[in-house]
């Protein structure tokens, strides 16, 4: 079963509702929306409904944080470190304690040591293990990503890719911000694709897979470079698996697509929003009225129920009231 991109984009950003309307609606609901992926169909149920489910249903959950841009201080958000701190504080209010955090890149604004230091200090407050991939903002040191690798890349391969297993789920961290080509989008490169093929080989198709990378692994908006040129090759290796969840950042807004058994999802930033693809002069920071900023920043929770394919993703904004535990 397959849906093309337009169908799914229509689902998420219904023209009669619009992005702002959708956010307002979610704000009105007082929670986030919970997306369940089943048989290739994305469906939203209310978070209250989901929380009403028996607690034992979920084997474990993990959290996605993205695009913290520590060091950013421009008009769209004069203090990105402060909103990152708020996002991390949200974690302790979640009804289920996540097993770990994945950070999908753009940890810092300019790859400065001080920014990396501050970012590490801030996320430490969560008291959880953190698995990173770099964004293009984390590759700006003299060594072109060496500063990132020295801190977070121990035991990784190439530009920093790796995989691990957790409670039966296989996690794959891919790097698509290194060695970018003129006129292109994100890029995985031949070495990493070969590694991915080997990494997946021999795994049962029933094993749930979670892939995370900074830039979207599907083409969200090519004119702004929102995609990864050689992602289709990676998806070909993943197509045989019954449950694949692809988590990305980079575009600072929630968007999703389902293709076969692969569910693609991008998370909000904790620093500043960006416009919907093509709706604005550039993908630069979107300046919104101060009172709206928190409703456009957020985190994503992924809940896994062992033996029940779909991984539920819950997007929560910094403006959402604290969830009762």
């Amino acid at each position: 079963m397959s849906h093309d991109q337009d169908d799914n984009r229509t689902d998420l950003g219904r023209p009669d509702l619009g992005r702002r309307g959708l956010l307002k609606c979610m704000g009105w609901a007082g929670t986030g929306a919970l997306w369940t992926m089943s048989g290739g169909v994305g469906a939203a149920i209310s978070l209250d409904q989901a929380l009403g489910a028996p607690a034992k249903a979920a084997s474990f959950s993990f959290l996605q944080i993205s695009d913290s841009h520590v060091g950013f201080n421009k008009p769209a958000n004069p203090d990105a470190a402060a909103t990152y701190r708020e996002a991390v504080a949200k974690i302790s209010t979640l009804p289920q304690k996540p097993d770990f955090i994945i950070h999908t890149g753009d940890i810092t604004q300019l790859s400065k040591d001080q920014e990396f230091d501050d970012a590490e200090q801030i996320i430490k407050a969560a008291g959880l293990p953190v698995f990173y991939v770099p964004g293009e903002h984390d590759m700006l040191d003299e060594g072109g990503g060496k500063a990132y690798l020295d801190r977070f890349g121990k035991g990784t391969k190439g530009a920093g890719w790796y995989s691990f297993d957790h409670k039966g789920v296989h996690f794959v961290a891919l790097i698509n911000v290194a060695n970018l080509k003129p006129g292109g989008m994100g890029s995985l490169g031949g070495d990493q694709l070969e590694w991915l093929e080997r990494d997946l080989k021999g795994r049962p198709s029933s094993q749930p897979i979670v892939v995370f990378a900074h830039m979207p692994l599907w083409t969200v908006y090519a004119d702004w470079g929102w995609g990864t040129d050689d992602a289709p090759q990676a998806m070909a290796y993943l197509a045989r698996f019954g449950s694949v969840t692809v988590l990305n950042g980079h575009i600072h807004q929630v968007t999703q697509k389902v293709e076969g058994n692969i569910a693609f999802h991008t998370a909000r930033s904790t620093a500043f929003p960006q416009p919907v693809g093509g709706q604005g002069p550039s993908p630069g920071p979107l300046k919104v009225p101060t009172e709206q900023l928190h409703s456009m920043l957020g985190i994503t929770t992924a809940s896994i129920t062992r033996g029940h394919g779909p991984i539920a993703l819950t997007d929560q904004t910094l403006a959402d009231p604290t969830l009762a535990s």
Partner: protein
Amino acid sequence: MNKILLAGAYALALAMGVADLRDLAAYAAPAVAAAAGPTVKIDNFVFGPEALTVTVGTTVTWINQDDIPHNIVANDKSFKSKVLDTDERFSFTFTKPGEYGYFCGLHPHMTGKVIVKAG
């Protein structure tokens, strides 16, 4: 224009009895330097002008006017800037004729070129 301003400034300095004209020269220098070569402005993730034609020996200066950092990387790697934060600049002097395609290493969909003609 600069000469007239500078002459005016000298006259003013003399009238005010300023002894050390070196300070004044230093003050005037940035304006002269900025006018020395063509500039490419980075605005809304676009290099403007996208194509620039210069003669050999010309120094081109890129200025980032976005709230997001960019850099300038030659397609053939013959030049590469460090990352440019808001309002930061990078200059490169072209010493050989040819067509130099370049892109932003962070946002590679941003491309431009400098066409260098023999003087």
